């Protein structure tokens, strides 16, 4: 199995642990990863201001992978959603596709729509499969409750992203449970993390984040698990900002990336998973693991 790995802008700069842990997990599971240096912004942050620019960005990435005959695995849900949106729109509108391709042609690229874009969770669930992962798990979690956070842009709009059932998704829960952890039900599990508004309306953005953290804590979660760059920055960096600003007295709920959670139970060293990079300390999670 081979994929072009799409990291996007934030992971290498701010969420290095997501790259580290993903690569480690891919290696362990036997997925070949190709890096395409020329990849650019996924287009997601541009959508508010210029739709065409965002589709062009996404299309260029897909065209680059297409040139090498590769499918793309995306770690971020917002990025994944953007790719799907672009794919969808380019299939629908020939005029747009021609316009985009005219620009791409200047550097010898063409978007034909042959490349399939998948989120890392989809790859693990569908392409690898729970059984294979189960076989590779060497340390199981015991007595740990995880609040699994789905993330909006992978789940919705469901007719475009086709990730899982938008009302009753279970893909992510199952992936969590394969490690022995319990994925709990919590009311706001499908709600927004607040990230799209950080920097635009911080108060609102943090309100949404706090609500989710409080709801997860109250539902008994020991950790929150996410699998998206923005969600993770929100639950980690921004939660840390909320905690250190002090005036809210929320109970810290550490957020762990799914690749970190899985990586540990695959027997990967916590250093190789970048556990120390998280702002809200997650090192204690190893206490829930059985020994090898």
């Amino acid at each position, binding site marked *: 199995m081979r994929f072009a790995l799409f990291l*996007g*802008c*934030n992971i*290498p*700069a*701010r969420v290095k642990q997501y790259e580290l842990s993903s690569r480690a997990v891919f290696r362990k599971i036997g997925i070949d990863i190709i890096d395409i*240096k020329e990849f*650019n*912004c996924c287009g*997601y*942050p*541009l*959508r*508010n*201001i*210029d*739709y*065409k*620019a965002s589709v*062009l*960005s996404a299309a*260029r990435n897909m065209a680059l992978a297409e040139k090498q005959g590769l499918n793309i695995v995306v770690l971020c849900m*917002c990025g994944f959603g953007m790719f799907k949106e672009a794919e969808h*729109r380019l299939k*629908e*509108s020939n005029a747009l596709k021609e316009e985009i391709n005219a*620009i791409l042609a*200047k*550097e010898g690229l063409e978007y034909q729509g042959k490349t399939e874009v998948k989120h890392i969770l989809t790859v693990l669930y569908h392409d690898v499969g729970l059984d294979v992962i189960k076989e590779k798990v060497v340390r199981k979690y015991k007595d740990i409750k995880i609040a699994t956070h789905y993330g*909006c*842009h992978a*789940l*919705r*709009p*469901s007719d475009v992203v086709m990730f899982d059932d*938008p009302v009753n998704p279970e893909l992510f829960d199952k992936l969590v449970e394969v490690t022995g952890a319990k994925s709990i039900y919590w009311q706001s599990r499908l*709600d*927004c993390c*607040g*990230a*799209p*508004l*950080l*920097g*635009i*309306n*911080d108060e*609102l*953005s943090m*309100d*949404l984040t706090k*609500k989710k953290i409080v709801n997860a804590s109250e539902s008994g979660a020991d950790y929150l698990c996410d699998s998206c760059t*923005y969600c993770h*920055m929100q639950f980690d*960096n*921004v939660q840390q*900002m909320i905690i250190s600003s002090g005036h809210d007295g929320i109970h810290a709920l550490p957020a762990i990336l799914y690749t970190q959670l899985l990586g540990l139970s695959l027997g990967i060293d916590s250093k190789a998973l970048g556990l120390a990079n998280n702002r809200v300390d997650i090192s204690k999670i190893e206490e829930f693991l059985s020994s090898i």
Partner: protein
Amino acid sequence: MFYSISLYLALAIFIIGLIYKVSTWFSLTISVESKKVSTRFLMALKGVIAAIFSGRILILLKVFFLDVIIQRKVMREDFLRWLAHILIYWSFMLLLVMHALDSLITSRIFPDYSPTINPFMFLRDLFGLFVIVGVCLVIYRRFILKAPRLKTNAMDHYAIILLAIIMLSGVFLEGAKIGSYSIYESMVEQYSGMEDAGEIKPLTAFWVENFGVVSPDVKGPFDQELLKKGREIHETSCVTCHSRPRWAFMGYSAARLVKGIAVALDRAGVHTFLWYIHFLACFIGLAYLPFSKFFHIFVTPVSILANSVMDRQVSEAANVETRQAVEFDACTHCGQCTARCSVAISYETFENANILPSEKIRSLRKVAAGKESGENFARILEGSSICTNCHRCTDVCPAGINLEDLWFSMRESMFKKDYPEFSLLSPLSYYRGLMRDTIPEEDYTKPLVRARNTITAGYDLIKDQTEVITIPAYDSEFQDKSLSFQASAFKDCFGCQTCTNVCPVVANYENPKETLGLLPHQIMYSLGLGLKDLALGSNMLWDCVTCYQCQEQCPQGVKVTEVLFELKNLAIQSVKAKAV
């Protein structure tokens, strides 16, 4: 005489230019809280001394070797570029020391030095060849390979042209001199002590045969006896200063090339003419250096070294600002940042070159010098704001410039001016949100409020909640055309309010209408009625988290979130169109 005057003139301009440029390092305004020139100067002095007399000197030495001498960053990114640059850089430096400054340096180290003996003669041509090959690679890369969005500006052209003139005039000057009979004659006069034409003939024959001199009357083939005699004279009078000119392989080739017309060229004094061109080009290069791209020869090492021991968080703020001013001059416009920029492709749709880091840095220098305003300023601000802060430009910059830091500082200082910037209302602001603690509270919110207010300013209808709104006639231009694609499905809305009921933003407020203006279902409905102003003026647009709950759950299949996305695009487009 003319030579000395032009040399001193060039030197004077060079020194004045240098002083002027260095002074700007302490006067350009980059930080929001800019310090006084004198403070910055003293702080910088202190910082430099502290760095040198501390453990950091080891880091500096290591970085100097790896990044200034070997230039590993360039090698890692692009081998061809590295090769071209190393060839030019090293060979040019060696030519400068060994050839241009020979009377000051080479002849002091080697008492027997003469430009016409080996190894100097050969090395001069070898280094010259390396520079020429390097320049050819540069031309190939810039004009034939043409990396996408790599811009070449007038400065780049001047640099390449000047270098080419210096190198080519040098080669042809050497060629003209090798063939020159008049130089030969004066040399003979000076060094052989012979005056009689018959006496001189064997030497002339020997030099015509072996040293490429083109004599108007003495022509081969010569008999061995004559040449043997010539060699004897040569060995007593000339050999101490002259190696075979073949070793100067480029000059010699040039001499062979023009052999047929060498006598005429010599009579016309072409070698004198070429000599003028050669040294004048060098002097122009010297005088122009502080103002040209070549200034980077001095400044880039400074930037690389400063960045290796400085950190925004711990270093003195005044010194960070000074370093950033230095960085403007350290940029070589090599385009590596643009080649790796995450949003460079957006240049194609925004048609704003300031998005490209390699172009942005130039514009920002003008902004820092207080030289930009109006439309230009707004474009530079837009270009600077369309940035995902991915750090890639900084990672690859061979000049060691902390570009991301520079963008951040310049953006914030530009936000202090009264220009609205709308890309702040997109997730591009995420990084700014994370960096909030480093920005004074008022400076943080002001540009956000300004962007929103500028957009809503044009839509009065939404502000007066008491008035009964008259429904306008069907605006086909707006309702059919501007809302494109799937978004036009808003027409199917029957006002059930599901979108509003599931909206997490609406749920977050006790009195959502007051904060958000219109709620999602009201926006859909007003679009159906053609009340464009209501839809575009609503705060809801910018507070939408794009979670797609509304769209997912709409029983009528209205693409609520898509509609909101398109309205945002539309609102920004129309406010920008109005500004122009």
